[in-house]
């Protein structure tokens, strides 16, 4: 069996399906399952703004992860969704990561959001970049005092990060804040499973952007993922049978 060819077929099929579902057949978000995570996150963010508390959006430790490809990109893709009007003018939000490349991207996203409808004096220092430390553990070490410095209402964890995020989670929960984790890596899922009620596991993390702000493009790509998944399941079952009889 030519595995490399199979890989290219998957990539090609993904491209074709995305194009067809975005520019051909329009799909509705109603086809997708709802996640309770979304509603609670929206509520929590609203409460946080209303109560004058702070929110922290953590974008993960790495832009590129070898085992979890796409987590860093997923976090950056979701960031604009969190920069809604209320957040942009609220001034109590922080976007953070230990990774320089993520911070540079985040800064660019922030700038473009503010340039969309804010004058320069207004935009100054509203949503701030939070570079608490340059390595994953030094970042968490720096984040802990920052979390106790101000009352935090919402902590959103995105991207690729490790079990040390539990420390930040506890710091926010101790203040009565709420934590929302899109936990991609297995270690972070295992550590946060215990004390984060609103957690997205595994592949679900790629839905953060879509569930928060559905649009036909995002829905289409999620459906493409579904189609590829079903295809893969079928291939695995058929492949197992063929291997058993010695064809593969």
């Amino acid at each position: 069996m030519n595995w490399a060819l199979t890989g290219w077929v998957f990539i090609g099929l993904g491209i074709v399906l995305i194009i067809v579902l975005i520019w051909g057949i329009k799909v509705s978000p109603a086809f997708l399952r709802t996640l309770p995570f979304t509603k609670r996150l929206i509520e929590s963010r609203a409460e946080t703004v209303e109560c004058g508390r702070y929110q922290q959006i953590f974008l993960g430790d790495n832009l590129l992860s070898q085992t979890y490809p796409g987590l860093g990109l997923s976090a950056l893709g979701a960031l604009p969704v969190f920069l809604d009007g209320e957040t942009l003018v609220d001034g109590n939000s922080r976007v953070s990561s230990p990774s320089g490349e993520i911070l540079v991207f985040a800064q660019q996203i922030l700038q473009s959001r503010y340039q969309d409808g804010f004058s320069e004096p207004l935009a100054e220092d509203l949503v701030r970049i939070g570079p608490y430390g340059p390595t994953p553990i030094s970042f968490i070490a720096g984040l802990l005092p920052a979390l106790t410095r101000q009352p935090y209402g919402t902590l959103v964890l995105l991207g690729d990060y490790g079990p040390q995020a539990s420390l930040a989670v506890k710091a926010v929960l101790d203040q009565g804040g709420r934590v929302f984790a899109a936990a991609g890596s297995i270690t972070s899922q295992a550590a946060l499973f215990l004390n984060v009620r609103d957690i997205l596991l595994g592949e679900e993390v790629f839905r953060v952007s879509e569930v928060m702000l559905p649009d036909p493009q995002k829905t289409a790509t999620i459906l493409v993922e579904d189609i590829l998944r079903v295809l893969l399941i079928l291939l695995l079952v058929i492949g197992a049978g063929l291997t058993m009889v010695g064809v593969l």
Partner: protein
Amino acid sequence: MPFLICPDCGAENPLTAEICQVCGASLADVIPMDMDNSEADDGENDEFTLFSAEDKDLPELLNDLKQDHEPAGGGLPEIDLAGEGESSEVDDTPEWLDVIRKRAHEELDAAGEMTQRIVAAQESLTRQNEEERADYASWIEELRKETREEAVSGTEGQEEEPLEGPAPEKAKKDWLSRVRKASGKLETHDEPNAASRNLLDWLVALEEEQTGGMPSGEAGVTQPVDLRQRAHADESTREVRVGDGAQQAVAPKRLDLSREEREQADLLATTIADESTARPVQPITFGRRRWWVEFILAFFLIGGICFVLFSGRLFLLPEPPVTSGGQAVLNSVADLPEDAELLLVFDYQPAFAGELEWVAAPVLEALPDSVKVSVISTSASGPLLADSMLERLEIIPAIDLGYLPAEAFGAYGLAAGLASTQAAEFLPKGASELFEGEFHGILILSDNAERARVWVEQLSVLTPETPLNLLVTAQAGPMLRPYVDSGQVTGMMAGISDAAGLETSRTQGPNASQRWQAYQVGLLTLIGVLILGVLLNLRGGATQGDDI
């Protein structure tokens, strides 16, 4: 055909839709509309009522109640929020509606909360003093003057059917039919230019109608609404209150409203009532930390460990096992030929230095002196950690390949198929040197299963004959075990469970045994806490369903 109207964008969605097909907003709490049956529609949703579809808990409440009590009508009934003006229609209401009313007045949850807020607002208004009313009256008079000049013509001529019109010929015996007939204004058709009127217009019209007073017979059916606005000199917003309009003795006028306007009015009225209602402020709960629980747990964990470590006693706990993985690593190292070249990959952070030194010490101490050691680091602090560990174990590296940014290089490697010597050509110097070397054995020290996995996958293809061994932390172990099973990895030691059983200078002696026992005590404490957590939540704790 009933359908759902999106509260955000106004798009029509099928009844089965969970979220809006246009904007994606949740339709979970939206009440179905039926355009084909405008009468029913009006009766259900277009009532000029404070109790609008915005109240999220009402549909669920109604559904629940309908299941228990046979419904007399299919729609959403009007509720007398003020509790006044009991009309004859009320007597004919079904039992379930009475239950709603009762609950709405008595309960704080579901519909009751909103109802009680509105009632509270109404009660507070009745206590307003006369000065406020005078202010209001003068203000509204000004509004009238302004708006009469600007108002779109034709609205006056389109008066609705009288509220007290005769009962229709068509026999509708149920109470809801009578309610609909009685509130005949709702059967009016949207006027063509209705949408063009601004909020101010209909506010004035609304005020005129309300101040005109409702026919007494209808008071219990159609909620009398009186919007009063008070301009505050020191505030940028105006407080609008809902109150008793019957006290205003102004000539009655008919109000002609489109459906859209009524919906807006409902929404506004509810919002106004809700805004002006005193409500308990959700206190910001700081310091919810349960100190005592944490203290007890920390005391047991740290106290237990300290007791085992420093008491000088050994307890009846099992000795550390000698695992096959650990033995395989030792054998692999011991079997290295004379003048063999061994590659050591340092891929861990300083936090894990303690554990990895414990794990690596037995293996590195067993290295024959003739072995040439090459070192490469893939974590930022790796070069320093490598120097430190090798110096302590008195191993002098023959070649130091320096620091290789694992994330960047590793990912490039994957992308370009690093697992071939050809790919190494275009890699930067450090990486290409790595893949040009011919090693007789590779030892990877890692705290991270993911990065170790990439090393395994790349190196096992690049040099399939070279024995590859893993010295990793306990947290990385479970995810790397399959590579041992599949033969890609010769041996693996994960955490001190695998290392403690091996005899070395570091792991011998009472101190090593006490550390091992302290480790056991820590694990047993966690097991105990997990079980305690289960026991404490045997009945409760089920806070959610299957899906996260």
